[in-house]
C-alpha cells in the first residue's frame, strides 16, 4: 500500500465523514483519487448519498401521510 493511496476500508470511512464535515485537503485528494480508481467505493459513495436523500424524503413523507390521514 502506497502512502499516496487509501484502502477501500479507509475510503468508506472518509466518504462517510465527508457528509458530516469539510474534509482536509489531503483527505479530499486521497478520497477523490481512490474513487476515480475504484468502482466498489464509487458505489458505496452513491449509496451514502442516496441514504441521505432517502432520510430527508422519509421525513417529508411521514408528515404528508399524517396530513393526508387527517383529511
Amino acid at each position, binding site marked *: 500500500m502506497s502512502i499516496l493511496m487509501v484502502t477501500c476500508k479507509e475510503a468508506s470511512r472518509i466518504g*462517510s465523514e465527508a457528509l458530516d464535515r469539510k474534509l482536509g485537503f489531503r483527505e479530499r485528494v486521497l478520497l477523490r483519487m481512490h474513487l476515480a480508481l475504484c468502482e*466498489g467505493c464509487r458505489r458505496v459513495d452513491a449509496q451514502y448519498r442516496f441514504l441521505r436523500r432517502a432520510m430527508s424524503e422519509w421525513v417529508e413523507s411521514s408528515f404528508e401521510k399524517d396530513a393526508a390521514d387527517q383529511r
Partner: protein
Amino acid sequence: MTKPSESVTRFKLEDLEGHRRSLFKFAMLQLRDEAQAEDVVQETLLAAMQGAERYTGQASVRTWLTGILKHKIIDQIRKSVREIATEAVHEEGSGDDFDSLFNERGAHAEKPSDWGSPETALAQKKFFEVLERCMDGLPKNTARIFAMREIMGMDTGEICKETGISATNCGVLLYRARTALRLCLNERWFGARTRR
C-alpha cells in the same frame, strides 16, 4: 394574552394533532423509549399552542414543530448524556466496525452492488417501511446519533456538545449507522429486486 394575530387563528389543536404521529416517530428514533417519546411530543404540541404567535409563517408548520421537538429531545438527551457517551462506543455488534466487509488488505471482500437508479424507490411507500425497519435495527445510541444528524439536521459539533461524545467517536457512529443501513437496504430492498 397577546391580541390574536393571523398565526394564532391558524393553529387549532386539531391542526397540530395531525402531526403527532410523525413527531412521535422521530422522537422514538432518537430516544428509543416510548414514555419519553410521548412526553416530548406532548410538550412540543403544548409549546406550539402556547407559542403560536411566534410562528411567523415563513417556515412550514412541520419545520417549526420539528424545531421545537428538537429542543425538547435535546433536553431529554442531556439528562442521559453520560449513559450515551459511555455506552455508544461499546455498543453491541459494533466492535469490529464491519471488518468483515474488507479483506486483510482493506479492499472490499465482496464488491458492493450497483443500486442503479435508487431514486425510483423513493416513490414507493413500501421502500420507506423497509427503511424504517432498518433504522429500528440500529443499536440504540448509534440510532440516536444518526437521527440527530440526518433527521434533526444537527451538525456534528452540536451533537458532540449535547451528548458528550468526541468528534472522532461521532464520526465512527455515523459511519456504523450508514454502513448498517446500506447493508440492510441492500439486502431487504435492492438485493431482493436484482435477484428477482
